[in-house]
């Protein structure tokens, strides 16, 4: 078990290391001089100032030296300062990362609480009108773009009914963005749970359990559910990363002050230190979640932890 987790952590560290290299190269991958672009519409900025910014970003050094400088600063917890405003990047990201994580966790909770039971019910009633109805609903959920669903929820709950606020960052403000992200992901979980459960229900050990005369509820809970949830757990890890990415659109609609919106603004403003910091932070979060999911997977499936 520990060996398994150790391997995963080592692979995660490798992923992050590769990300640090890509992040350093990023600033050079964009056509044109990045510093000139940043100040293209700043009337009154002198060439000496532009040179100074280039030096402060280390852009006057060779790429390997830049990378080492970046690593050195990184180990000191320094992600640099934002170009616009000069604030420490780490501080700017840490102000907003909790908001995005709260949104992702809340959405995941909604997705699981709604998606898994629906999938389970559809599998249990496979081929019936209930199954077909639920799956049509799920397909509709998957097909709905976030921005459309978000705006519809906003108009209905905030504008028509006036139950919830339109924008902001309080707990009441969390409900609509979390529902938007959660509902479309619930549809994905519902479909996945259904197919996985059907697969398990047709397996010999389940048939044997039924043949032994065990009550249906016990067979479903002890045998089907545990085995059938394995692919769902895997999907949870992937979907969490997806939600962090998908949150960008939702954050924009509901003015949720998360890192996704910050990244989009930084891209428009060519604020490279923020973009670099965001990619790195994002990769760390995704790696940590992936390791956690792998560990959970190992707990659920003895075959994996023994492998």
């Amino acid at each position, binding site marked *: 078990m520990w060996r398994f987790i150790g391997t995963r952590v080592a692979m995660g560290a490798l992923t992050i290391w590769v990300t640090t290299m890509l992040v350093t190269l990023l600033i050079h991958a964009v056509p044109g001089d990045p510093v000139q*672009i940043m100040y293209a519409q700043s*009337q009154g*900025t002198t060439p000496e100032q532009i040179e100074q910014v280039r030096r402060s970003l280390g852009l006057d050094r060779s790429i390997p030296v830049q990378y080492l400088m970046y690593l050195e600063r990184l180990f000191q917890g320094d992600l640099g300062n934002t170009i616009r405003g000069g604030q420490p990047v780490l501080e700017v990201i840490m102000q907003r990362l909790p908001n995005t994580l709260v949104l992702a966790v809340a959405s995941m909770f909604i997705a699981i609480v709604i998606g898994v039971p629906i999938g389970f019910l559809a599998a249990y009633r496979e081929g019936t009108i209930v199954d077909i109805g639920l799956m049509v609903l799920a397909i509709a959920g998957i097909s709905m773009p976030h921005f459309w669903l978000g705006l519809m929820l906003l108009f209905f709950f905030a504008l028509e009914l006036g139950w919830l606020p339109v*924008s902001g960052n309080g707990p009441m403000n969390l409900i609509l963005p979390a529902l938007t992200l959660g509902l479309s992901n619930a549809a994905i979980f519902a479909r996945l749970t259904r197919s996985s459960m059907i697969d398990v229900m047709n397996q010999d050990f389940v048939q044997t359990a039924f043949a032994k005369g065990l009550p249906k509820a016990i067979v479903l809970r002890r045998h089907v559910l545990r085995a059938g949830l394995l692919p769902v757990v895997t999907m949870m890890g992937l979907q969490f990363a997806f939600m962090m990415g998908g949150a960008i659109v939702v954050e924009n*609609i509901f*003015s949720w*002050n998360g890192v996704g919106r910050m990244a989009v603004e930084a891209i428009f403003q060519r604020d490279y230190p923020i973009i670099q910091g965001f990619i790195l932070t994002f990769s760390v979060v995704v790696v940590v979640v992936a390791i956690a999911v792998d560990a959970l997977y190992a707990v659920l499936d003895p075959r994996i932890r023994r492998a």
Partner: protein
Amino acid sequence: MIMNRLALKQTAAALGAVFALAGPATAEDIVWARYGDIDSLDPHRATSTLSLQVWSLMYDTLLAMDAEGNPVPHFAKSWTANDAGTEYTFNLEGGVMCHDGTPLDANDVKYTIDAAFDETTPSLTKGSWGPITAAEVIDPLTIKLTLESPFVAMIPFLADSFSSIICDTNGEGFGTTTAIGSGPWKLVSWTKGDRLVFEKNADYTNFGKLADNPGAPYEDGLIITVVPEPQARYAALTTGEVHIAEPPFDDVPAIKDSGELDIIVAENTGQNVFWEFAVHRPPFNDVRARLAVAHATDAATAISLIYGDLSIPENCPISRGVFGNDQDFCAQYRPAYDPEKSKELLAELGYSMDKPLETALLVWTGGNRQKLGEVFQAQLAEVGIKATIEIMDIGSLNARVRQENENTEGTTGSMDMMTWSWYDPDILYALWHTPGAYRGYTSPELDAILDETRVLTDPDARKAKVQEAMKYLLENAIHVPLYTPGWEWVFAVRPEVEGFKVAPFVYPIFSDIKIGG
């Protein structure tokens, strides 16, 4: 069920109380929603309109702008200059206080200018202050600025928020978490990416800023919040969460018809939207190709189609409200809409409807500019110019335009609908004096004219020189003006808000606002 609802309401109320700080504003607060946030509270660390608008509320400036955009006394009640235009002495108002209770005087002005010219961290707009070599405190209410050479654009600059006076008691955290100014609104907090909270400066005296209110703002608080999505801003306006915001463009006619919100359009924004061309390669290295585009463009029809009466055509390379702008003068030289003339010029260059002039047409995203681009594309097609629209964010556009100017190979043209704003004709220097903001068109002749626009102290002589520069740019179709204003100039205002107005260069004024009359 009733019990459940009750419980839900109670829980929500409890949560609301716990998170009251993040919740909606109190009844006395004015709430203004914008699409984005400021970059910094320090006026030396940013250049965006979003930042400028906020600084104008927190800080004072030596001078202010009147409704026509002319500099008038403010914290400086008068000023004198020597004949050479290299020494300016400002006499300051007494009794003005910073938000921390310390007096605002000449030492704060010197502190601000020294910070702008700091060797390690100069202001981003250092060049716009002019060649200031010394700021000398004569006495607490008199300051003298010495310039290396005359720079007439300094006076309007001192009326703009870029020159906001920073109190010398600002220290650790200034710009990122704290800011002490002397303006009508006092900073309470800034949550980056979310909101700025202000309370009124009860001791404020307005000497010259464009507000009817001579003293402190009428309302107690002001919240400037970030709502990026236009439909969400509209929804927040409708529910009353927000009092003032830029509405979605396509909904403006419906809003006007319904009368549920007032629509206020800013005037004299200084914004100029124009054609410019990649001039270092064919086809636009030939003035006839540039003129062909200019003659094929019917800006008035296109703008009316897309913006209705919200925006107007502009004849000058500097927009209304900026010194030197003269519509009649510019109309004489701006290539008029004349498709036949355009076809003749294209024929001279060997192009026809069967063999069209091909060009990329670069457009900045947002504000319905992509739709406007399509109308222009259709107009160009009518004379035999095949323009391929490419839509991109402003950062990419800036990069791309410069790249296109640096590319001298090939025969496919590149032109773009560029957007700039500045309070003084010195903008033309930034754009078209060697080396040029985008490394585009430059010439020794134009350089000489633009050099003079910076040093002529006599307003009439300077105006004549500015007009000479505009004539040159228009006749050579280097800078083909299309319309003004071009972005963030429409405000939807809730009916209970009285007294909201927008000063020149898109500075909203909140001191006159009374909510609910």
